[in-house]
């Protein structure tokens, strides 16, 4: 399996302030990587380093097969980037914007025209191709900026908040587009504050605050932090059965979650029958048994240390 990005102790400081502290990661090609963290965590600085926009203070990186610091021009030619601000030329038309950038990425004039048309059509902007971008809505500008990042068919794409500020329909279009890019074999490095979106899209999640706190698949992060478990919807008041469940030897923890019981278990597959049998024996009526799900938001907040105790099970 080839590696799209490999960093070793990559760091960046601005004076006495450390923005990125010793980042080490290895991203397989063809994954969607969610890079999560609070504002000011150093995510944009990380992206800028990996896209060869700014130099690291120390450490090394191989990006799209090129060594950072010695092959920066090649890195820029091999990656696409959607920056935090779309940065489009308002006085130029959508097509002019795309063709200009396509040519900067060394596409021939004919290929630039072809790619501009392809992506304008793909993203539903073909009808507005000759309109000045200054009159575009936020969603249209974002889609155009995404198109700009993809014109030269880069194997690695950095998307900084691709659906920020978009209406639900436009956000869904962007998500579907990212899924298509993954299906095409591209590596997507995604920074987002939209945790449900990251949960939907990402194969790997990295939670970052100046340094990498955790890197794993969403499922393994959930298991590592919260364990596995079962959600039981019971007839009547669930609180009645809370102590019964807690008394069972194989139950790590049990808590009310709305009108249900959330139970943490080592092995739900083996222990669910014992759990349900114990409740039935105690007189409970079981309406539904579901896997206990934790949202990515809970994972994120747990890792960043906010509301740690309450987030442990819910």
């Amino acid at each position, binding site marked *: 399996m080839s590696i799209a990005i490999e960093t070793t102790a990559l760091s960046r400081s601005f004076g006495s302030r450390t923005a990125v502290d010793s980042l080490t990661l290895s991203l397989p090609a063809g994954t969607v990587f969610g890079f999560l963290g609070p504002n000011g965590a150093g995510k944009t600085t990380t992206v800028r380093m990996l896209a060869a926009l700014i130099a690291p203070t120390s450490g090394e990186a191989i990006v799209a097969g090129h060594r950072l610091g010695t092959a920066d021009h090649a890195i*820029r030619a091999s990656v696409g980037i959607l920056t935090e*601000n779309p940065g489009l030329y308002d006085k*130029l038309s959508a097509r002019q914007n795309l063709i200009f950038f396509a040519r900067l990425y060394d596409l021939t004039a004919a290929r630039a025209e072809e790619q501009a048309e392809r992506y304008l059509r793909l993203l539903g902007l073909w009808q507005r191709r000759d309109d000045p971008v200054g009159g575009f809505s936020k969603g249209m500008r974002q889609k155009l900026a995404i198109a700009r990042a993809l014109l030269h068919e880069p194997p690695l794409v950095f998307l900084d908040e691709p659906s920020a500020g978009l209406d639900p329909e436009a956000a869904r279009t962007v998500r579907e587009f990212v899924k298509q890019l993954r299906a095409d074999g591209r590596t997507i490095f995604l920074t987002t504050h939209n945790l449900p979106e990251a949960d939907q899209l990402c194969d790997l999640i990295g939670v970052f605050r100046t340094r990498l706190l955790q890197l794993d698949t969403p499922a393994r992060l959930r298991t590592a932090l919260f364990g596995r478990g079962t959600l039981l919807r019971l007839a009547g008041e669930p609180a009645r059965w809370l102590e019964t469940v807690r008394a069972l030897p194989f139950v790590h923890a049990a808590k009310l979650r709305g009108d249900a019981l959330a139970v943490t278990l080592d092995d739900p597959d083996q222990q669910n029958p014992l759990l349900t049998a114990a409740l039935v024996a105690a007189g409970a009526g079981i309406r539904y048994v579901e896997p206990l799900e934790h949202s990515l938001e809970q994972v994120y907040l747990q890792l960043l240390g906010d509301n740690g105790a309450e987030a442990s099970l819910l």
Partner: protein
Amino acid sequence: MNKVLLILHKEWLELRQERALLFGMLLPPLLFTLLPVLIVYAAGTAPDEDTRALGAALADPALAGLTSLELGQAIVGRQFALLLLMTPLIVPSIIASYSVVGEKTRRTLEPLLAAPVRVRELLFGKCLAALLPTLIVTWVGALLFAAGMALVTVSDRALAAIITPGWITAVLLCTPPIALLMIAACVAISSRVNDPRSAQQIAAVAVVPFMALFFGQLVGVVVLSPAFALGMAVVLAALAALGLWVAVGLFQRETILTRWS
């Protein structure tokens, strides 16, 4: 070179959509061309013996022997001829401040810097985008000025006293370095300001040395001979080279992204 031309083309596409900028670029040279024609014509209709006492008249032997009408036109015409050299001060500051500060305020620099284009190509493209219109506007303006003088001067002697070899040398050789110096100044200023108009206003300080030349000629301290014009061009070229060296230092990817306020 290809990417330089791409950037130049993009700058042109943007510039031609900015009517206010185009107007601002063309108005000063238009004024510097049309207004002198009217005033030199007027000077040719009303002789003034006091003109002979002016420093400018006394300092240049080439003006000796001219009639009062001819001398009046020559003095006025020469001062306006010098004003034309303000064109390469004004025009590039308008274009370059829009081009550089404008990209900064519109947040279009980062995607541009993320592309595989070398910073020197980017800067060179922007410099050309400011330099070429300046050269065209200045030299066409100078031609129109000369043509206008030919129409309104009372004699060939008066015309020769205005359209002098020194002035021609100054227009041809000093215009490019003046323009480049202004462009370099705008790039340097752009790193600190967030409004193209602020950049233009700060760059307007460059008028001060020009005004020294203007009044120097009027009082007779300066005579714009070919040697003087050549000397000016050499000094300006050296300053432009220094200015561009500073500008290149400020216009670096990392500096723009991390330090431009």
